[in-house]
C-alpha cells in the first residue's frame, strides 16, 4: 500500500536537487521519530490551549504541518520540529481568533530551552514502549481487551473470536476498531516517563 506509492504531489518538483522523500520514508519516520513524542506534544497542547475540546484537531493539524514540511525534507530533530510546529500553530490560532489570554502560549524563549534539551534516547523509547504496551492493554475495557488479545495474541479469526465471545462478527469489528484507537492513544499519547523530555 503506502510503500508502493511514490511522491504524488507535483509541488515537490520545484526543488529538483533535493532528494525525494517517498511516502514509505515518511511513514517510517513518523512511526520511528514522531509518534513516540506524541505524549510530549499532547502535554504541550493541553498546557497551552484553554479549550480542551480542540486538542484532537490541533494534534491532527500539527501532524499535517509536520508531514507537509517533511515531504520536502525530513527534519533532523523530530521532537524539536514537532514542538516548534505546535507552538507556531497555537500562535497562528491565537492571532486568528483574536484572543489574548494571559498565558495562552508559552513563551517561545522558555520553550526554546526545553526544545534544545536532549530527548530520551531512542532505545529508551523502545524500552518504554514495551511497558506502555502492557499498561495500554490493561486499560482497555474488558470486552475490548478480550477481542484484541484473541486477535493479536492468539491469532484467531474474526469468526472464531465472535464464537468465543458469543457476539456477532460486526460487534467483534467494533471492539477491535475501538481497541486500535484506544491503544494508539495510550501508547503514543501517554506522558508517563517521557514527560521529562520536555
Amino acid at each position: 500500500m503506502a510503500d508502493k506509492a511514490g511522491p504524488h504531489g507535483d509541488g515537490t518538483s520545484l526543488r529538483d536537487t533535493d532528494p525525494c522523500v517517498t511516502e514509505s520514508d515518511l511513514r517510517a519516520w513518523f512511526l520511528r521519530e514522531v509518534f513516540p513524542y506524541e505524549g510530549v506534544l499532547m502535554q504541550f497542547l493541553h498546557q497551552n490551549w484553554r479549550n480542551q475540546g480542540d486538542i484532537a484537531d490541533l494534534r491532527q493539524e500539527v501532524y499535517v504541518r509536520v508531514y507537509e514540511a517533511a515531504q520536502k525534507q525530513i527534519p533532523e530533530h523530530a521532537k524539536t520540529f514537532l514542538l516548534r510546529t505546535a507552538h507556531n500553530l497555537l500562535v497562528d490560532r491565537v492571532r486568528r481568533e483574536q484572543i489574548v489570554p494571559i498565558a495562552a502560549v508559552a513563551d517561545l524563549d522558555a520553550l526554546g530551552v526545553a526544545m534544545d534539551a536532549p530527548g530520551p534516547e531512542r532505545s529508551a523509547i523502545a524500552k518504554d514502549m514495551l511497558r506502555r504496551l502492557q499498561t495500554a492493554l490493561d486499560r482497555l475495557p474488558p470486552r475490548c481487551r478480550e477481542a484484541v488479545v484473541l486477535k493479536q495474541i492468539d491469532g484467531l479469526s474474526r469468526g472464531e473470536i465472535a464464537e468465543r465471545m458469543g457476539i456477532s462478527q460486526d460487534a467483534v469489528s467494533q471492539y477491535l476498531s475501538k481497541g486500535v484507537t484506544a491503544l494508539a492513544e495510550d501508547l503514543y499519547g501517554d506522558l508517563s516517563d517521557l514527560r521529562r523530555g520536555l
Partner: protein
Amino acid sequence: MSGPNTTRPVGAQEITDQAADWVERKMHSTWSTADDAALESWLAEAPSHRIAFWRLEGAWGETSRLAALRSPPSLRSRAMSVPRNRLPVSKSLAVAAVIVAFGFAASGYLAARDVTYSTGIGERKTLTLADGSRIELNTSTVLRAGRSGNTRKVWLDKGEAYFRVKHDAAHPFEVVAADQRITDLGTEFNVRTDGGRLRIAVVQGRVRFDGKNGNAHAELLPGDVAVAEASKLSLTRVPVPELATRLSWRSGKLMFHHTPLAQVAAEFNRYNSQKVIVSDEQARTLTINGTFATNDVHAFARIAQSVLGLRVEDQGQEIVISH
C-alpha cells in the same frame, strides 16, 4: 473526547474513526486487492488520512510484541484453552527475541499487589487500575494501591490525587490518607494531603469520610470540600463548576482568583524546583487573577513585575519578589 464544535468540516475524531475501521478491516483474511485499492484512494484524499492510518496501524503493529508476554489472568486461562496449534510459533519466537533484546523483566507483569506509584516535582501521572478506575497523581505524590480482602485499597502517603472510581458495592474502594479513611460510594473526588491536614473535594457521587480513631464521620456530596485537621473536621460547599477550577492541576494549570501572592507562590512551589519567595509582607497580600501552566513560574514573575510593579530577582535557585 467530546464532539468537535469547530468549523472544520471533518474533525480529527471522525478521521481517526475511519482510519480505525480501515486498520480493523485490514487485519482479517477477508482483505482483498480491491480493498487495497479502496484504502489507497482514501489515503490519497488527504495527508490527515495518511497520518491517522499510519498512527493506528503503527500502534496495532506494536501490540504484536506483546504476544505471549501476558494476557490478564482472566483472559489467560481462556487463551490457554485455545488449541495449541493456533498459536503461531513464529510470533512467539519473535516476541521472545524482543524480551531478550530489551532485558525486560517479567516482574512488571506479575506485581499486582501493593504497587507504589510516585511523581516527582512538577510531574503528573494517570493510572488506570484493572477495574477501570482512574487515579490522577499530582506533583510530588506517593501512592500505593493494593487489596485487603474484598476492599480495593489505596494509601495516599503524600501529595494529591484525583480519583474516578468504578463503583462496585462488593469491592469497596477505600483511600487512606493521614490516618483517615475515605470510602467511595460511586464517585469522583480529589484528595490532597498537606502535612497532617487532609482536604477532600467531591465532584460527583458520594463519599464517606471516617476520621482518625473513628472520631468523626461524614458523608460528602458533590461540591463538598472537607478539611480534616487533627481532630477537627470542617465542611464547606462550593459550586461544582468552581470546584473544577480548583482542580485545574488535572490539566496542568493553576487558576487564581483574587489569590494573595503568598498563596500563589506556595502553589507554584509545589510544582517547581525553582522556588518563588515573596519577601515582604506588603507584597504577600497583593492579589492576582489568572491562569498559568504549573511549570511556568516565569509567566507569574513577569506578571508580578509588569502588572503589579514589583521587583523580581531571578537568583537561579529562587525567584525573589519584593516591593
